[in-house]
């Protein structure tokens, strides 16, 4: 029965997938003809989602109805005797007692019961409902398809939404009504059965049954003495298993979550190295986002200052590069320095190289930030703003780390190379390759620069940050859930497809520009291909949670992983959606891109790095951050990110449409003001969350643990005894 249902569910999913894909085809062919088509996508998508939910609702109802029909049929063709036996075996002690008492009196009264009949009425009612529902779905499709370009008008969109709200509410209402009806009917049937059962019970049982029942009653009345296992002696903890009992926990402000378990045998040299990486990363996060926050405010208050070093064009790359190379890169590397030796089951080969790498990268970001503010940059390509001598420091840092990791892996004591190390080492290789490609000048005259730029900036995001972060998640997430990764093979599939498709997509930042058309097309195709690794990866992570979902509420790290996974799925697929030519018309050059990069670099990378930081520091230092500030950090960051991105995406879409309509450019600037304000608000919340994060890191690394009364007392005792001798 269950398997059958599942089969049906899968069939249904395929059906709806077919629906979606046919929609996509339709959208493409239409895009060429009607200029206004692109702005319909949102509405159409909404309608299709609605239809999808309708179908799901109908499917659910259908299953329910089938259940009902089966129940009815069983009721009709049932074998009375065995049926009652089932009930007789299931009587409770009180019921048996009542029955035995009742049957003694033995007054038989008969009652006729009639059964069946009106279920046909119910059936036909439901069929009607289904029909009306499905016709409604068809209607929705027809309407959206037929009206063409008029749908682009804001008024029409609003009208459609207004229409959909009551219709949708009505459908939900109907579903509830039908479910209620089904319940009623079920109860009706049960009452009929109850009546029959009562009638059956009104005859007194034969001797056998009576004996059985009495025996059953005795069994049911059996009670434990509660001392079967413990015996009657008082409890004693001979093995010392129970420690630090608190009987008075006070009134907690936040729910108590599980403490991190201290890891045994972490080399203190490694612990120190990892903590320094994370500490430096934390500094760059605060620095980079303070700059970002200020840059965001400048959209609302352009005359905030008139200093050349703080002007928008100079500060923007300071922000992006500091959070990229300072925060995210150092944070990831710090976490990786723990993972690589751990899964190789081998000590890190060279701590010295690790420290050199740390200082080189820090020096690169420090010098880079200063030089950018002084007006020295590499001529404009995003994330390629540091000039080559500065980026060279970063590159040497990566080389040292790569050699270090490769040597550690070479000397591993495990046979397999755990998948985390695939991703981490690959990310280092790719990071070096793209830096070399981007900074070697031979092929970068004219448009060559732009082709390389598209490649470089997107590979930086996908093959350096995303690749390494995925590697980290493959270690830290299973560790936190205390269960292995759901599928190793999916991880391998995601690995190779990520390389295959991601490498192609760079130039989708220059769609419709003068770089070769075929290259743009390759990038768009690659962007669609990215669906494979993204779906494989996020499915793998989500299924690793399977059976462990309850752990989320007990843990203060798992929510960070979960948010990261959700944004990994949504943010990455949003990237695919943005790559199409039709969506490029509307979104390219607007702040939609900015919102997207924050959804991904912040929602995915930063949340995952935070998750790793909260996972690993307590295990290295033995200290934990106060739960209330971890919670504050999480919620401020998440809410801030949504405040930042959602209004910006909405406003940018409308801005893009204004451009397409040929409205004066200045109108679109004026129009954007409220969305920029929202962005500043969201950015401020994110920034506040970072203050909490910095505090938490301080508490975890440098914070003084609260004085333990017992330990302090014994210390004193030791001192005094030393004094007397």
């Amino acid at each position, binding site marked *: 029965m269950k398997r059958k249902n599942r089969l049906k569910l899968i069939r249904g999913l395929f059906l709806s997938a077919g629906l979606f894909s046919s929609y996509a085809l339709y959208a493409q062919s239409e895009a060429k003809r009607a*200029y206004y088509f692109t702005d319909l996508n949102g509405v159409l998508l909404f309608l299709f989602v609605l239809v999808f939910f309708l179908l799901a609702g109908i499917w659910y109802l259908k299953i329910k109805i089938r259940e009902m029909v089966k129940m009815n049929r069983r009721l009709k063709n049932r074998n009375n005797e065995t049926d009652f036996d089932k009930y007789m075996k299931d009587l409770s002690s009180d019921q048996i007692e009542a029955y035995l008492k009742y049957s003694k009196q033995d007054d038989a009264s008969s009652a006729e019961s009639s059964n069946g009949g009106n279920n046909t009425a119910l059936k036909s009612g439901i069929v009607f409902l289904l029909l009306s529902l499905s016709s409604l779905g068809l209607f929705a499709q027809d309407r959206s398809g037929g009206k063409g370009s008029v749908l682009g008008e804001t008024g029409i969109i609003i009208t459609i939404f207004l229409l959909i709200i009551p219709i949708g509410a009505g459908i939900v209402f109907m579903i509830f009504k039908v479910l209620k009806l089904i319940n009623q009917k079920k109860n009706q049937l049960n009452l009929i059965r109850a009546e029959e059962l009562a009638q059956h019970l009104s005859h007194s049982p034969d001797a056998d049954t009576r004996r059985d029942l009495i025996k059953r009653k005795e069994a049911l009345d059996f009670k434990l003495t509660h001392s079967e296992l413990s015996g009657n002696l008082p409890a004693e903890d001979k093995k010392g298993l129970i420690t630090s009992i608190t009987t008075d926990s006070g009134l907690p402000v936040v729910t108590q979550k599980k403490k991190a378990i201290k890891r045994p045998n972490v080399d203190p040299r490694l612990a120190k190295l990892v903590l320094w990486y994370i500490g430096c990363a934390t500094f760059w996060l605060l620095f980079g986002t303070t700059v970002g926050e200020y840059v965001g405010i400048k959209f609302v208050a*352009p005359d905030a200052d008139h200093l050349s070093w703080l002007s928008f064009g100079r500060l923007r790359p300071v922000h992006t590069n500091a959070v990229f190379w300072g925060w995210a890169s150092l944070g990831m590397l710090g976490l990786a320095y723990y993972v690589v030796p751990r899964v190789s089951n081998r000590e890190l080969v060279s701590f010295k190289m690790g420290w050199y790498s740390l200082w080189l990268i820090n020096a690169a970001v420090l010098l880079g930030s200063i030089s950018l503010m002084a007006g020295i940059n590499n001529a*404009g390509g995003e994330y*390629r703003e540091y000039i080559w001598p500065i980026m060279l420091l970063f590159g040497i840092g990566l080389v040292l780390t790569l050699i270090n990791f490769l040597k550690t892996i070479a000397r591993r004591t495990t046979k397999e190379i755990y998948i985390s190390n695939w991703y981490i080492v690959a990310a280092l290789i790719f990071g070096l390759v793209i830096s070399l*490609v981007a900074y070697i000048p031979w092929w970068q005259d004219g*448009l060559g620069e732009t*082709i390389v730029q598209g490649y470089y900036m997107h590979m930086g995001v996908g093959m350096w940050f995303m690749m390494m972060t995925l590697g980290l998640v493959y270690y830290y997430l299973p560790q936190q859930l205390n269960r292995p990764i759901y599928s190793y093979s999916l991880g391998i599939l995601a690995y190779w497809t990520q390389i295959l498709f991601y490498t192609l997509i*760079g130039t989708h930042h220059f769609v419709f520009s003068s770089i070769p058309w075929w290259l743009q097309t390759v990038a768009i195709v690659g962007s669609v291909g990215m669906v494979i690794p993204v779906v494989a990866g996020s499915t793998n992570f989500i299924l690793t949670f399977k059976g462990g979902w309850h752990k989320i509420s007990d843990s203060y790290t798992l929510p960070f992983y979960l948010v990261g996974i959700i944004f990994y799925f949504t943010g990455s697929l949003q990237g695919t959606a943005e790559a199409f030519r039709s969506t490029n018309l509307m979104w390219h050059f607007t702040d939609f891109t900015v919102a997207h990069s924050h959804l991904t670099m912040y929602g995915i990378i930063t949340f995952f790095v935070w998750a790793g930081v909260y996972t690993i520091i307590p295990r290295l230092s033995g200290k934990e951050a106060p739960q209330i500030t971890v919670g504050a950090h999480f919620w401020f960051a998440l809410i801030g990110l949504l405040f930042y991105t959602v209004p910006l995406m909405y406003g940018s879409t409308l801005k893009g449409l204004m451009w397409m309509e040929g409205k004066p*450019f200045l109108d679109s600037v004026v129009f954007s003001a409220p969305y920029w304000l929202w962005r500043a608000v969201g950015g401020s919340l994110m920034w506040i969350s970072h203050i909490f994060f910095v505090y938490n890191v301080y508490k975890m690394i440098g914070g003084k643990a609260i004085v333990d009364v017992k330990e302090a007392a014994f210390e004193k005792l030791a001192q005094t005894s030393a004094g007397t001798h």
Partner: protein
Amino acid sequence: MEFFDNYKKLFSATFLLFVGLTILVAILPAFRNEKNNAPLPNAVPLSEDAVKGKAVYIANGCVACHTQQVRIVDMDKTWGPRPSIAADYADMHRTDFWRNTATLMGTERTGPDLTNIGNRQPSLEWNLVHLYNPRIVVKESVMPAYPWMFTLKTNPGKDDVVVNVPAEYLKGKSGKVVATKQALHLVAYLQSLKQAPLPDGRPAPEFLYKREVKALPAADGTIPALDGAALYAVNCQSCHQANGEGLQGAFPSLKGSKIVLDDNPEAMVDIILHGYNGREKEGFPPMPAIGTDNNLSAEEIAAIMNHERTSWGNSAKEVTPAQIKEIIEALKSDVK
């Protein structure tokens, strides 16, 4: 699998796959592009000042908000008469030993595209005022102000370029605002940004995703007039302002202007098409040939003129596109 357990094989395969794809989608196309494209014969190389101005443009990260590419889509028509092509960028080479090539194509259009700004806004005075503080001329602008590219002098010398900045933007300081070399170089660079025409009358590639023409003839056959206010906003407003009053001492007022209110529209059409330098004595800089530079049609000019003739308390007779067409023809033959 043995292959996956051998770190040399695994990471070599990873490396080779990535490098192979990199060569295909980045390095080879970049080389090919470099080899197959030469600068247009009509393209004017940057002057010495403009080269220095480009360095200023790069140093201040202008590319963060300004693109320099007219995409091959209809909506980008505002920024240039033809789509940008690879040849437009062919003459760009590595900036110097320390810095990369700067095509400055950009990925964000927080501000307007500048591919053709030298044609669209050639006025030195406007650019300098705008650079000192964009909100002097465009109230709604969110562009940063660059006052550090200017100095204050009580007695500017003969060669000093004085910028007419309203007192409220001087924040209580006194003196004349004088543009530094940096500002002048930057403006020289902006003025040099012009789309070069394609050689020997070769047709430019067509813009894609054409907008459906809205101005369909109505039922009675009349063609609805173009939106003069919108055209004014795009072509004229940055100097003459939304209220038509211009900027005192910098850009003349159109409100109550003799030329605008003249029953004979000839002089006004001439100024729009070919620019004007008749009021330099009063301190007003020459007006650029907006109509010619921006390829305005007779219909568009008529719509702009009617907006100017009937707004802000102006009430002159409206003109018709046919009338304007005639004047344009007459002016053409005059020039000949």
